[in-house]
């Protein structure tokens, strides 16, 4: 069977939506229908709620949804990374149990990777999982865990073998967050939000079938999750805007945006809000300041060339060509764009850049850009780590020597850890 054309896909999804979408549906009720049809995640395999279509058609499908205001499946934040990892490495049981509820929005997820003692060096995790009887018992502490306080489930990286070298003693689990041994405490961030948490895990239990992969395969699987994260799967460049349409489904979607999606509401700001720059410069008259014009132009050059670099990567992928270096630069470019945009927002805002909240420009949105952008070069792997990866994996430069590469993890020097705050 040959691959369908863009026009085929457009016609088919549009016809299906016209015949099926109705704003009087309940949110989950509609999404269940959507999941059954495969149009909720057309790039998923046919047997797992998708249509097996190439990723490039997702944009076309989205356009058809937008045309008639049809609500999509839930696909914001960490849940997207969970789904991608489950598709890549999960068992049929994992797929059966989780994918549908991720898409309908019934379950919220978080990523328990970073710890107080191990961030960039994520493989140095010391949270331990031990098989006792017919359960895994988990003890340890995680931190910076976005959305943990809202989450039903977690992707967990934990150590199962302390005698193996660092990377080889890790395993990957799907942890039920709604149990007595798991305690998530929100941490207040420099931008005033509290979307990440410290998570204390004390004798939490995991059924053996909720391990993903085998003992020792945790690092490999976590790398898949991170790859999806760095490619922007959970990045939320545009925030799901509450709809002004009327109908039960929109009311329920707006409620979801206000609750489970709340931790992500500053995410567009941390990317720099390049989209606001020109209008702000015009509104303030700073567009006529030759220095501002130059600096603004520099941001636009950077963000456009970054966008076109991503398009080049996607076009090559769609043609089935081997991935070129341009596909791995997005995370670092995103940091450059965000920082440059924040600088120019400050130039444009002038004295008002000293104000925040309701006294700040655009009801505080600009101030929020200025104090949120620093997250971009840290979350999901710092800029320095991205440069290491580009140099070592893409440019094949020598890997940093690790004096403990073949030593048991228990002998590796590490941080003494205390509670944050």
């Amino acid at each position: 069977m040959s691959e369908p054309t863009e026009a085929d896909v457009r016609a088919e999804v549009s016809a299906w939506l016209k015949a099926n979408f109705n704003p009087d549906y309940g949110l989950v009720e509609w999404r269940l229908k959507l999941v059954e049809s495969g149009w909720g995640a057309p790039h998923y395999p046919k047997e797992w709620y998708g249509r097996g279509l190439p990723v490039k058609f997702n944009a076309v499908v989205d356009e058809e949804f937008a045309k008639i205001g049809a609500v999509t499946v839930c696909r914001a934040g960490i849940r997207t990374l969970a789904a991608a990892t489950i598709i890549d490495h999960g068992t049929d049981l994992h797929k059966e149990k989780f994918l549908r509820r991720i898409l309908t929005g019934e379950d919220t997820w978080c990523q328990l990777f970073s710890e107080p003692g191990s961030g960039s060096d994520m493989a140095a995790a010391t949270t331990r999982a031990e098989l006792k009887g017919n359960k895994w018992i988990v003890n340890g502490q995680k931190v910076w865990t976005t959305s943990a306080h809202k989450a039903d489930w977690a992707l967990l990286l934990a150590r199962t073998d302390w005698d193996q070298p660092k990377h080889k003693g890790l395993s990957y689990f799907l942890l039920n967050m709604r149990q007595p041994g798991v305690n998530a405490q929100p941490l207040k961030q420099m931008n005033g939000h509290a979307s990440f948490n410290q998570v204390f895990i004390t004798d939490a239990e995991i059924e053996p079938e909720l391990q993903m992969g085998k003992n020792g395969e945790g690092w490999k699987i976590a790398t898949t999750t991170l790859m999806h994260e760095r490619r922007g799967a959970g990045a939320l460049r545009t925030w799901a805007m509450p709809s002004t349409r009327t109908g039960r489904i929109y009311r329920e979607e707006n409620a979801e945006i206000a609750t489970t999606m709340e931790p992500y509401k500053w995410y567009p700001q941390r990317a720099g809000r390049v989209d606001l720059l020109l209008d702000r410069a015009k509104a303030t008259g700073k567009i006529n300041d030759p220095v501002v014009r130059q600096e603004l132009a520099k941001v636009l050059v950077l963000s456009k060339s970054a966008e076109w670099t991503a398009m080049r990567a996607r076009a090559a992928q769609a043609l089935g060509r081997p991935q070129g270096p341009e596909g791995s630069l997005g995370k670092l470019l995103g940091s450059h764009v965000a920082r440059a945009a924040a600088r120019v927002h400050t130039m444009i805002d002038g004295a008002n850049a000293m104000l925040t909240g309701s006294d700040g420009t655009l009801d505080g949105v600009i101030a929020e850009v200025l104090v949120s952008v620093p997250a971009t070069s840290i979350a999901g792997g710092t800029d320095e780590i991205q440069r290491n990866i580009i140099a070592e994996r893409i440019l094949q430069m020598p890997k940093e020597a690790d004096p403990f590469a073949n030593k048991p993890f228990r002998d590796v020097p590490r941080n003494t850890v205390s509670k944050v705050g």
Partner: protein
Amino acid sequence: MQFSFTNEQEDFRGILRRFFSARSPSSEVRKLMETEAGFDRETWKKLNQELGLTAVHIPEAYGGQGFGCVELGIVLEEMGRVLLCAPYFSSVVLAATAILNAGTEEQKRKLLPAIAAGDTTATLAFTEDNGLWDASGVAMTATGTKLNGTKSFVVDGHTADLIVVLARQPGTSGDKGLSLFTVRGDAPGLKRTPLKTMDATRKLARLEFKDVEAELLGEAGQAAAPFAKTMTQAVVCLANEMAGGADHLRETSLEYAQMRMQFGRPIAAFQSMKHKQADMLVDVETAKSAAYYAAAAFDDNAADLTAVASLAKACVAEAYLQTAVHAIQVRGGIGFTWDEDTHLWFKRAKSSEVFLGDANYHRELMMQHWAAA
């Protein structure tokens, strides 16, 4: 918009890369750059005949191959990669494009086939001693078809067989009263002086016109639009040429870092060297994206083409120069020598940064488009 090259285009690039690396090694570049002409007519003719380079974007009706700006961009990127010494930018990108945009049907039939065949070399003389890249800088007068004044920074101006000249009716200014003319290189009253160029691989000349009899190209007083369009295409082509040079510097710097030993290991093992290479890759790949996008936008006649062309030039100019600075730093002392090749590209980066307008100039053009939108 086309975001990837077709298989045919990739094949074309592959052929060019092999040919140019065989025929234009740095020893050849160094030999030619020491000559006053800057190229060798016979060698260039032969190479051109094998590949049909001068014909690429000229329509078939005028003896060309009728390809677009994307293919022309590929040629330039590959030439920029090896600093090929040939009157290509002058004859094909500047002169032929100007003739295509401004000439009458009859003039195109008369002038273009010889350029497409590589028999005639040509150039476009537009900038004057004031160094302005747009029509506002033109002071040279055309009284009827008699030219008086001075052109400068004319690429291959001292060797071109045919010179396309931008001049204005006395008493006009800005975009008004502009006309294009053609003049033979050996026309009476024309004095041509080669300039000492920092980048010896791109030759420039100063041309003094005293009552030089010229032939009008296209319509009298109507040259502003075809000239502007020619500049847009030239800027896009230059951006692609520069992207090729930048990519070459990035690759050779990586090779050097992998090979050079200090403190018992290749310098590529040091993190500051790795981060520099990662930054160079980011700069060069985004510059390529901008240059490729601009070439595709040209072929699509995109509504914001002039802004996109300027964006590409601004982006590539900074990337090329920054890469050249890193390329020397990575090599240490040997990078500062005349015998090592890096400075040849450094100088091309520097002069290309300024040629056809620097990054500030192009960012301003871009803003004029987008701030008005």
